[in-house]
């Protein structure tokens, strides 16, 4: 029995396997070909519907991304327009200042305005580059993912496994997610002004406007300064021209250099005063020497300056006495030294006497 039983058990396994196959076959047998075809058609319809839904979702996301990109680009474009207008105003103000200013200060203002305008322009370029890198490129990349996913979907035959559809959808969603991530880190935040460089873009426009306004305000003052500077410069040039001609006049016109000795002396003092620029003190009282009083034209730090406006000054007794007085004042250290100025010539004898007594001189 044992043996039979064992034998039976050995025999039953193939049979059960056979039954299972038969059951499957029997099951198939329960559904007809039409039913199977219907099931396949239903499945295909479901797949198509899923594909359609996925494509619709992709298109919606795609459109949403495109709308956001368009909005961001519009805002950037507006900012750029404002920036360009501000820069144009700045440059116009600069040109206005440059056209009216001829002095160094004005040039400095213009250079500063130029630098500001260039800096603003550089900021605009940098901002554009940032936008392009952070917003446009990721968006395009995301759209490529979407397109790639849709392309996969388009390649799927109607009866392909659902897992392919699910994979394509995941791929598309991954692309959108990547796109949204980039947007969140760039475009969206940029548009809403959260990200720093978006604020910088706005600041650029404001700064450009502010710079233009400041320059416009400064322009009239700069024009006044430039005008005054021009007038002063003209006066200085005219004065220099007159001054340059004076020493060359020989003999000078009576109207400019009077001939009388006393008047010549006064003219010399005035000329010396002009040459010294008013520096020093015109002593109201003389210094005492053993030969009497000695008046100087100017004393600067105990150094005496004497002007001689006579024509070809010769060694008269009066000149000789003056030289000796000065020499004594130097010798007793009442003055540190003396310099004589001859505006219309001097004879060598006078210069020799001055040299002998350690007195300096300047001959025009």
């Amino acid at each position, binding site marked *: 029995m044992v043996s039979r039983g064992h034998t039976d058990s050995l025999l039953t396994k193939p049979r059960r396997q056979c039954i299972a196959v038969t059951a499957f076959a029997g099951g198939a047998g329960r559904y007809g070909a039409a039913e199977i075809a219907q099931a396949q058609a239903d499945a295909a319809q479901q797949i198509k519907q899923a594909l359609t839904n996925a494509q619709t979702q992709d298109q919606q996301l795609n459109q949403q991304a495109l709308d956001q990109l368009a909005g961001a680009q519009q805002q950037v474009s507006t900012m750029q327009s404002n920036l360009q207008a501000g820069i144009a105003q700045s440059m116009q103000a600069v040109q206005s200042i440059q056209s009216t200013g001829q002095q160094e200060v004005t040039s400095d203002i213009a250079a500063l305005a130029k630098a500001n305008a260039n800096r603003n322009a550089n900021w605009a370029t940098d901002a554009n580059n940032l936008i392009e890198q952070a917003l446009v490129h990721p968006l395009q990349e995301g759209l490529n993912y979407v397109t790639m996913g849709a392309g996969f979907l388009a390649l799927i035959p109607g009866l392909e496994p659902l897992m392919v559809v699910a994979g394509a959808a995941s791929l598309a969603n991954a692309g959108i997610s990547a796109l949204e991530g980039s947007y969140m880190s760039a475009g969206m935040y940029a548009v809403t002004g959260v990200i720093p460089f978006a604020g910088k873009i706005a600041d650029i426009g404001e700064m450009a406007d502010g710079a233009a306004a400041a320059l416009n305000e400064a322009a009239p003052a700069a024009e006044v300064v430039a005008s005054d500077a021009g007038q002063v410069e003209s006066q200085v040039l005219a004065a220099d021209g007159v001054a340059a001609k004076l020493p060359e006049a020989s003999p000078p016109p009576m109207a400019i250099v009077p001939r009388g000795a006393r008047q010549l002396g006064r003219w010399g003092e005035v000329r010396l005063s002009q040459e*010294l620029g008013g*520096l020093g003190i015109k002593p109201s*009282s003389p210094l*005492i*020497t*053993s030969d009497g009083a000695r008046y100087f034209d100017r004393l600067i730090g*105990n150094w005496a300056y004497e002007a001689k406006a006579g024509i070809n000054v010769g060694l008269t007794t009066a000149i000789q006495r003056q030289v000796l007085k000065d020499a004594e004042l130097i010798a007793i250290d*009442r003055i540190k030294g003396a*310099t004589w100025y001859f505006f219309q010539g001097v004879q060598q004898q006078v210069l020799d006497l001055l040299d002998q007594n350690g007195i300096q001189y300047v001959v025009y």
Partner: protein
Amino acid sequence: MGWELLDSLTTEEAQIVLRNFLEVEEKAVREMVPAATRDGIKADFSIASIAPMLVWIAGQLKQVPIEPPSDIPDWIRKEHEKNCGWMEFDEPSKVLIFRAGYYLGEAFVRNLRGLAWGTGHPDYADKNRPVVTGFTAGMEMAATTIAENMMWRINRTKSDEHAKKAIAHWLSKAPGYADSR
């Protein structure tokens, strides 16, 4: 040195300034003498001691640069720079210049008969300043200004030669100089 203020004083007020100058500087110089002695200077108010004393004080003077006026031509600026330089003595140095002036004048007054401290003649540039009077031809020694110029030249030339000659010039104008020799 800024003496312009003295021009506006009356003769009586100038006398007060002179007395104060002599009193203050006498005490200050007396206190300064031991320091000079330690440096080998015989500060006994003799005529011979004047030059060494001025050299010693000149070595302690300090000049500071001043800004030349901006409205003068360049060549004038350079001319004065060549002559004197755009410098002035600092405040401590100005105090020392007063002491040097006192020593110079006091040495002459102590050693030469007929000389005395007084105030500058009102008709001349040294009006109301402390000066030594009694020189020939009515000359007056504006001691502080002269001491300042002497020490300026000593420092500039690194020599006391001119100071010694200047002292000799003043001596030659002192009426009692011949008697004192």
